[in-house]
């Protein structure tokens, strides 16, 4: 048994499914539902997103927290619920890396939600958010002023 083998064994699929089972009902009152197949696909997406972003997660992931944080957004369309969650999940891990793990999960999710609403639910715009702006929003809990062009210092590097 070596460290690589040990970390590779993390993340059983069943754990993600249990997490979805627990959190998904909270979104149903907003008309957001996930079928069993969709839940399984999302669970697989979690594994892929972690691999793609070079991260390891033990126990529960962030899908449950993402569901709770985004389910009441007026920009979230029920027909794109599964795809949106999958995309948000991957963006979350990606921003976590970009912020050098200097912000907590809750801080980052709140910042993502703020930007998501500012961009009217555009995931492309969210993905293109400058990391220093995301970092600042995560730390302060509020959106920075709209970009007017010109460079900003990269605070996550400090």
């Amino acid at each position, binding site marked *: *048994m*070596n460290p690589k083998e040990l970390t590779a064994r993390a993340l059983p699929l069943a754990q993600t499914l249990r997490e979805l089972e627990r959190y998904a009902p909270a979104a149903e009152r907003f008309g957001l539902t996930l079928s069993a197949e969709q839940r399984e696909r999302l669970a697989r997406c979690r594994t892929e997103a972690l691999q793609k972003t*070079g991260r390891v*997660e*033990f126990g529960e992931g962030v899908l449950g927290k993402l569901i709770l944080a985004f389910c009441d957004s007026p920009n979230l369309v029920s027909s794109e619920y599964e795809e949106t969650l999958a995309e948000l999940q991957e963006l979350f891990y990606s921003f*976590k890396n970009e912020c050098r793990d200097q912000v907590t*999960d*809750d801080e980052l999710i709140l910042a993502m939600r703020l930007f998501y609403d500012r961009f009217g639910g555009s995931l492309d715009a969210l993905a293109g958010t400058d990391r220093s702006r995301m970092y600042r929003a995560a730390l302060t809990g509020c959106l920075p002023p709209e970009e007017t062009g010109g460079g900003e210092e990269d605070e996550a590097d400090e």
Partner: protein
Amino acid sequence: MSDVLYLPLSPEEQTRFQTGLLELLARQTALYTSGQSSSVPLETAQELAASVLFSLKLSADSGPERCRELLGQGMEEALAQSRQVLKEKVRRCRELWTAVCAHLPETENAPMLETLNSIGTFWKRYDLRFFAHQLPCSIDYPLALPVPEERQGIDYLGLYLERLGIENEFLRRFRSPDVAAALRAGCPEFREIPLNLFEPPAANALGRTLLGRAPEPLRLSSEEYRALAARFADKGSAEIGPELASAARALSAHLGLSAGQGTYLEKFARGLAPRAAACAGDGLRGIFWG
């Protein structure tokens, strides 16, 4: 009963063992992030895993008996106990470092001093809770008998300091000008570069002992070189090794070395044998320093 311990793990035991380790790693990760992050970068996860494995004394070579021992004790309990052991090792290691610093050889070497200074920062930087396998200091001064690379964390440092103490104690048995002269013969910049101070004087002392002479002044004349080369000519490492080991025992007795110091000198002497056999024909330059 003991035979049963060595039987391969059953599938059920394997599952319990792997699950236990993963749960432990998950708890360690949660503690590391203070529960504020569900995920960590792969490199961090692997370092946390390496620390858990090191603390539990688990390696690729660990047999089923160690796994059963941990299953019986409980992983978390085993980890908590290992921390007490590590704390004690750190305490002993720090005492050893203090002793080594207080008994430096008169002949100075900058990398040795820098290494000891860097070890002085280890005590504050060593994180036995999450990164017990790491060695947060720079060790640039080489030993005559290097610490095996498999050693990690405080185990590496403990053995390093133990060996450095033995080497320095040996040097302190001789006059500083004699030590410096032996070193200068092979490397005039010996004070500045990362050169082991023990090897040249120790090899010369062994050579002189082999010839039935007193180890001082730690230098070999041309005639003594020739005598040693003639003695080793046509001999293999297997024959030279015991001769050098015997010289090491005689030298230990002459210097009044402790058992541990004597064993180290003998191991060093045996280690010279393959090189002595290989270059006996070339006058033994590079093994004994003129």
